[in-house]
């Protein structure tokens, strides 16, 4: 057993006060800790561990690292060996060095993104508790994010120079972490260049996704909502709060999710992602999208390129 889900994402924000206001009031997260160097830790109402988003004050936007939770402590030993045998340099850190977490492994994906693995994080519990709970808590003021669902990382792709970090990352996630390749986009003259991949650690269509671009970065991280009605409500909330929306409510062909893309106050892209999409099973065939239907895969209704979707990321 390896990765069970996304654990947290640590992002840079330029104006910490604006960001705190946004992630609490609009995204409906709760601040669970603030440390002396200004970092802010938040969780959603439907999450039980201490935090899923870390806001780090910085002078530019983007991601510092992304953490995944593994099922049990001994998995860290097994995965350290597997990663090192694969040729990845791994740093092991003691309990507490990643705040509120047990011991951790840190390494860089072939794309350069920093990834952390942990098995234990301080427990807080859901807002509704775990005894005879209400279906949702009182006091939601924004989109009502349930949990941090997944992230999409932009990876360097330059096929003519022989560079495809999407393919390298994907191979690692499959071979070391036994993740399931749910969907992929294949492009190029022979249709053999892996442009984008969606990988599942459990039963949902993706826990992480990789897309090729000119340089590495953070494309977006997504919060889960129940259904289409919640997506429409979320879009209303974004409008009311003058949040910059990149793509209005729409369905993805890929993953079948219902989506909105928008930007946090520092320009990091967020998504609200609703619906299970479909159930991933270990023996489910991988879905492949071709270059001709690439945009239909991304935005199923409009089936049109959205330039900012590929150009704008942090």
């Amino acid at each position, binding site marked *: 057993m390896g990765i069970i889900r996304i654990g947290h994402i640590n992002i840079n924000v330029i104006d910490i006060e604006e960001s705190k206001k946004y992630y609490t009031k609009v995204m409906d997260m709760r601040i669970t800790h603030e440390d002396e160097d200004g970092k802010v830790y938040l969780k959603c109402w439907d999450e039980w561990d201490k935090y899923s988003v870390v806001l780090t004050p910085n*002078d*530019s936007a983007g991601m510092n690292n992304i953490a995944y939770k593994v099922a049990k402590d001994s998995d860290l030993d097994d995965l350290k060996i597997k990663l090192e045998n694969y040729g990845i340099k791994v740093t092991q850190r003691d309990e507490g060095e990643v705040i509120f977490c047990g011991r951790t492994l840190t390494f860089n994906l072939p794309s350069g993104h920093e990834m952390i693995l942990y098995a234990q994080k301080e427990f807080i519990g859901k807002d509704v508790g775990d005894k005879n709970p209400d279906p949702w808590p009182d006091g939601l003021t924004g989109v009502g994010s349930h949990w941090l669902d997944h992230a999409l990382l932009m990876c360097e792709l330059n096929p003519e120079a022989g560079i495809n970090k999407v393919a390298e990352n994907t191979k690692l996630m499959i071979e070391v972490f036994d993740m399931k390749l749910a969907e992929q986009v294949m492009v190029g003259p022979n249709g053999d*260049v892996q442009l984008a991949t969606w990988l599942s650690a459990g039963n949902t269509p993706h826990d992480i996704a990789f897309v*090729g671009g000119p340089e590495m970065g953070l494309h977006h991280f997504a919060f889960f909502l129940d259904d289409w009605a919640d997506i429409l409500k979320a879009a209303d909330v974004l409008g009311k709060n003058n949040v910059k929306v990149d793509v209005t409510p729409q369905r993805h062909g890929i993953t079948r999710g219902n989506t909105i893309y928008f930007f946090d106050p520092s320009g990091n892209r967020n998504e609200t992602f609703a619906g299970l999409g479909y159930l991933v099973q270990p023996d489910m065939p991988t879905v492949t999208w071709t270059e001709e239907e690439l945009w239909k895969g991304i935005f199923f209704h409009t089936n049109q390129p959205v*330039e900012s979707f590929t150009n704008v990321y942090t």
Partner: protein
Amino acid sequence: MKSFMYKLKMLGKKNFFKAINIDHILKSMEKNGIDIAPNGCYGGGCGVCKIKILHGETQTLSMSKKYINEEEKTAGYVLACRAFPKSDIEFEFVGKPQCKTKEKKKYGFV
């Protein structure tokens, strides 16, 4: 807040356009049909709307240092989504322009 109208002129365009000081310069570009105005993050984080102020004054909010370093800031570079006019302005667009033609990329996104 009292609002003021200013005249903005983009290098390479014949005519100026009117802009209100409570709109950031990118928004004024969009409102006035400047077709290369990119659709970016509006948060000073992604860098696509970079401009150089040639004449005039702006008031700016925080901007990513990755795209506007101290040297560039001194030289008059700003991100249009974080800059508000304080006078008439002439500027040069140096960011990633919105591509109106359907440019076919060889490998999907690159």
